[in-house]
């Protein structure tokens, strides 16, 4: 059977509301490359097709590289992408291709979902992943993560990578979400104790946003004025 014939048969079954499991399972047994081509070239995009492929992901992984497989599946799962990403993260929690998957599916918010997942599961490797995403160019997703959780780590990592603009946004966002966020503590641990200019910039930006001055910023400024 050619790929075109298989594609046609699959379309007809889906359009008439019939089960696809029989034919898909048969192709998987006889000629799994047919399924690989239909999926990777996105020849059929349908939620039932996607759900079924998800249920046989382990089999598909045997002959499709996981990053390509999950990017293709992710494109099929447009309505349930957050759940899909959670599912992949649980299945492959340490795979570095997750960064490429996130880039493909989340675009400019790359890293956001993975960071949220790490945050909710209290993962100790969150800083390592944040660093990896930042090094691969993630900015908006990491800033949004800081803004939504108050987590101080994106600010520290972005400043360390010399992206002062994104670092400032992440620091201010974290403080607005949680005025007790240990932003200065993590900045000092990441880039060193000479933070006067950064603290002044954060304070000015918080003032612009009409946000209250966090206690740690007030303490820092007090130390400076005493000096």
């Amino acid at each position: 059977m050619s790929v075109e014939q298989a594609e046609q048969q699959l379309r007809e079954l889906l359009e008439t509301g019939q089960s696809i499991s029989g034919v898909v399972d048969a192709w998987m047994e006889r000629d799994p490359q047919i399924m690989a081509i239909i999926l990777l070239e996105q020849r059929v995009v349908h939620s039932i097709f996607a759900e079924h492929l998800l249920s046989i992901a382990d089999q598909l992984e045997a002959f499709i590289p996981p990053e390509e497989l999950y990017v293709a599946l992710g494109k099929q799962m447009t309505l349930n992408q957050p759940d899909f990403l959670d599912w992949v993260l649980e299945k492959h929690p340490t795979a570095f291709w997750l960064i490429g998957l996130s880039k493909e599916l989340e675009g400019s918010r790359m890293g956001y979902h993975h960071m949220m997942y790490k945050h909710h599961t209290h993962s100790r490797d969150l800083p390592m992943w944040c660093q990896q995403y930042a090094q691969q160019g993630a900015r908006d997703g990491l800033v949004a993560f800081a803004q939504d959780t108050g987590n101080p780590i994106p600010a520290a990592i972005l400043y360390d990578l010399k992206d002062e603009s994104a670092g400032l946004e992440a620091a201010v966002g974290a403080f607005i979400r949680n005025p007790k966020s240990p932003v200065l503590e993590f900045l000092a641990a990441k880039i060193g104790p000479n933070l006067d200019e950064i603290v002044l910039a954060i304070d000015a930006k918080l003032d612009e946003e009409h946000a209250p001055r966090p206690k740690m910023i007030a303490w820092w400024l007090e130390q400076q004025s005493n000096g």
Partner: protein
Amino acid sequence: MKQQVVSLGIVGKGSQFPFTGIFSAQQQLSIGKVSAVGRIHDADIKRDFRQTIQCSKQLTMLFQAHQGSIKKLFRSVWDWYHDSKPHSQIVSLTIQVLSPDGDLWMSMVGTSGVWGLLDDTWYPLLADGSAVLQDKYIAEYPMAVQVQPLPERIVVLPKPFQNVLPSSIGLKKRVLEVCDVG
């Protein structure tokens, strides 16, 4: 003539947050460029933050208020160190003064090694058995050493780290350098 610069750095731990517990200060004084770097071993990012920052600020203030010789400065710093250091912590501190004449003086406590970079080559400034690295005191104060010839960079390994210079990647990621104050 532009005064020479010898950057002073300290090695932090090999982790995502290498500079936890590290403090530093620098000032241009009449006796020369004064730099200091130190590290509180086993510091916690959050718990020891204020103490670490206060060490930087207090050293800066001490430098700013100083009048007198290099020897007097060293003594003031060590008096401050002994007054402020909690008994339960390993605290490393190195002070460096580069005089306008180009003489480089150092004094240190809690250091396992000091390395200099000259002509792209790192070499130990003090031998492993050096009395300075063993924290021996003279007249109740840590010794001062003069470094010759002048290296371009100096990197300090604080105790309890071993006296082994990190790889070139480690030197990039784990060394906090005091900025030039020229």
